[in-house]
C-alpha cells in the first residue's frame, strides 16, 4: 500500500512538470506582453521598461522559468493584475463558494439517477423505457445554456420561487436560499446523461448468471434488483462519480457566471476577460494538482469498495 502510494506520487512529478511547462510556454509564446497589459494604454516606454525590469522579463527564459517554479512552490504568486488581491487569497476565498454549489449538485445527481436508472432498467424494452431513452436523447441535444436561461426565467422571475441570483456570507443562507435554483437546474440537466449511463450498468448486471440464480431461488424481482443487482452495479457507478469528482473544484463555469456565484469558475472567467495572467496560471496549475490528488484518492477508495481490485 505504502509502496503503491509512493510510486503514484513519484509518477505525478513528470506530469506536473509538463503542466508547468505547458502553462509557461503557452503564456510566454502566445500571450501578449505582460508589461503592456499591466502598463495600460497610456504607459510611456520608460514605464513599460520599468515593469519589464520588475517582473524579470528581461532575463533569459530559463531564469523566468525558475521564477515561475519558485512562485508555484512558495504559493507566492504576488497579486492579481486586475484587483491587486493576493492570488493565494483569491484562491482560498473563492473555493468555498464553488464547493457549496458543486457538492449538493454531485450528491443529488447521483442519488436521483440511481433509482431512475434502475426503474428504467427494470422496464427495459417496454414503451416507457423507449420513451425515456428518446426523451433523454432530445433533452441532451438542447444546450445547457437554454435550460439555465429558461429555468431562471420561469422559476425565479415568473414564479418567484427562488431569488434570481445572489450570494451571502453565511453558509446556511447560501445553501437554503441561493444554491437550490442552480442546483435544481444542474441536476435536471445532468439527469439525462446519468440515467443513460447508469441504465447500461444495471443492464450489464441483469444479464449475469447470479441474477438468474437469484430468480430461480424464488426471490422477488424487488429483492433481486435491490440486494443483488444494485450492489454490483454500484462499482461502475462509484467509478463514474469518482471521475466526476475533480470537476467539483473547477465548478460549473456557466452556473457560477450566470448566477453570479463568487466561486473559482467565475473568478477564472473574469481573469480571462481581464488578461489577468497570474490568476489563470495559478488556477491552472493548482487545479491540475488537486485533480491528480483526487484521482489518487479515488483509486484508493475504490480498493475499499471492491476487495477484488488489486492496486499495482
Amino acid at each position: 500500500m505504502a509502496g503503491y502510494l509512493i510510486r503514484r506520487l513519484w509518477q505525478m512529478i513528470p506530469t506536473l512538470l509538463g503542466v508547468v511547462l505547458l502553462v509557461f510556454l503557452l503564456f510566454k509564446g502566445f500571450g501578449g506582453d505582460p508589461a503592456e497589459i499591466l502598463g495600460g494604454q497610456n504607459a510611456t516606454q520608460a514605464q513599460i521598461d520599468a515593469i519589464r525590469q520588475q517582473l524579470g522579463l528581461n532575463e533569459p527564459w530559463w531564469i523566468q522559468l525558475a521564477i515561475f517554479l519558485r512562485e508555484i512552490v512558495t504559493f507566492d504568486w504576488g497579486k492579481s493584475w486586475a484587483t491587486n488581491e493576493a492570488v493565494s487569497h483569491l484562491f482560498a476565498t473563492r473555493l468555498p463558494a464553488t464547493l457549496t454549489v458543486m457538492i449538493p449538485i454531485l450528491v443529488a445527481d447521483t442519488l436521483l439517477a440511481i433509482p431512475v436508472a434502475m426503474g428504467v432498467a427494470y422496464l427495459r424494452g417496454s414503451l416507457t423505457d423507449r420513451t425515456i431513452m428518446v426523451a433523454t436523447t432530445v433533452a441532451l441535444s438542447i444546450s445547457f445554456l437554454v435550460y439555465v436561461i429558461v429555468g431562471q426565467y420561469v422559476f425565479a422571475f415568473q414564479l418567484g420561487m427562488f431569488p434570481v441570483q445572489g450570494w451571502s456570507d453565511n453558509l446556511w443562507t447560501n445553501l437554503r436560499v441561493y444554491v437550490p435554483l442552480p442546483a435544481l437546474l444542474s441536476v435536471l440537466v445532468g439527469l439525462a446523461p446519468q440515467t443513460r449511463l447508469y441504465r447500461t450498468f444495471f443492464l450489464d448486471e441483469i444479464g449475469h448468471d447470479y441474477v438468474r440464480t437469484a430468480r430461480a431461488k424464488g426471490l422477488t424481482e424487488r429483492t433481486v434488483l435491490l440486494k443483488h443487482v444494485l450492489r454490483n452495479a454500484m462499482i461502475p457507478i462509484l467509478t463514474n462519480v469518482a471521475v466526476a469528482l475533480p470537476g467539483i473544484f473547477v465548478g460549473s463555469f456557466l452556473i457560477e457566471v450566470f448566477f453570479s456565484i463568487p466561486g473559482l469558475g467565475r473568478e477564472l472567467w473574469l481573469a480571462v476577460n481581464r488578461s489577468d495572467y497570474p490568476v489563470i496560471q495559478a488556477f491552472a496549475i493548482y487545479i491540475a494538482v488537486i485533480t491528480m490528488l483526487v484521482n489518487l484518492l479515488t483509486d484508493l477508495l475504490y480498493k475499499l469498495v471492491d476487495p477484488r481490485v488489486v492496486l499495482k
Partner: protein
Amino acid sequence: MSAVLADPLEAGPAPRTVWSAAAARFRMDRVGMVSLVVVLAFLLVVLATALGLLASDWQVERGVPDAPPTFLGAAADNQAQALDGPHGPSADISAIDPLAPMYQAWAEAAKKYQTRDAVRAATLPFGADRLGRDVLAKALKGAQVSILVGVSAAVVATLLGTVLGALAGFFGGPMGDVLEWVYNVFTAIPGILLIFAFAAVFPRGVTSVVLILGLAGWTGIYRLVRAEFIKHAVRDYVRSAEALGASASARIFRHILPNVSHVVLVQLSVHVVGFIKSEVILSYLGLGVGVDQVSWGTMLSEAPSELILGHWWQLAAATILMATFVTAFSLMTDALRDALDPKLRGLE
C-alpha cells in the same frame, strides 16, 4: 476469397468492401437515414449561407426593434401610455447658448448627406431582435458559424489525435513515452480549464475558437487511435508489408490507417456534437466568435435580457435549430457506429 464471402444474391462480380457493406447496413437503419437527410439539409443551408445565397443580409435592420413574429400580430402601441411631453412655448436661449454660432454650419454640413427613411416592418416571419434584425436570418447565419466551428474543430482534434495516436501506437519506445507524457499533461488539466487557458492567450474569432476546441479536445481520439495502432502494428498483414519493403509511413498511412478509419470517423462525428455545444457556451461567456458575427451562442447570450421583456422568439429560434441539428447528428452518429462496427450494436 472474396467470391466466397460475397453475398450470393448480389449480382455482378464487384466484391463487397467494408465500406459498401457498412453503407448497406446504414441504409437499412431507418432512423439513421432520416437523420442523415436532416443533417444534409442543414449542410445545404450552411453552404447556401456561406455562398451568400441565404441570410446574407442578416445585419440589415428590417423590422421595428423587438418586432414580434407575424403569427402573433404586431405589438400593441405603447405610445398612448407614455407621459405627455412638455407644453408651452420653448424658451429662447440662443443668447447664452455657446453652440449657437455652430448650428448654421452644422445644418450646411448635414445637407451633404442623404438620409433614407427605411420602412420598418411591424412584424417579421419569426420576429426581430433588439435592433430589428430578422431572427430567422440570424438563426440561419448562426447555424453556418456554429456548424462550421463544430466541424472544423472536430477535424483539427481528429487530425491531431489520429497523427499523434498513430505515431505513439506504431513506434512505441521513446517516442511513445514522450507522447504519453504529453497526453498525461493535457488530461491532468480539466478540459474547461484548458479551454480557458487557451482562450486567455488567443485573440477572439472563429479561427481561435476552432483552434482552442481542437487543441483542448484531441486526447480522447489519441487514446483510441493509439490502442488500435498498438493492436494492428504486430498483425501479419503489416509485417508482410514490412517484409515487402514498405516504409514506416506507408505502413502507418496506407496499411493500418484504412483499417482503423471507422474508429476515426465515428470519433469525428461524436466530437462535432460536443464542439457545437462548447462553442455555444464559449460564445455566451464572451470567449467565442467575434462581436460582428452571429452564432447560436451569441443569439442565446442576448436571450436572458429579451426574455424578461417577454420576447422569447430569438431564444426559441436558436434552440429549435440547434436541438434539431444536434439530435439528428447524434442519431446519425449512432447509426454510423452501428453500421461500421456491428459488434457494438445495442451496447449503448
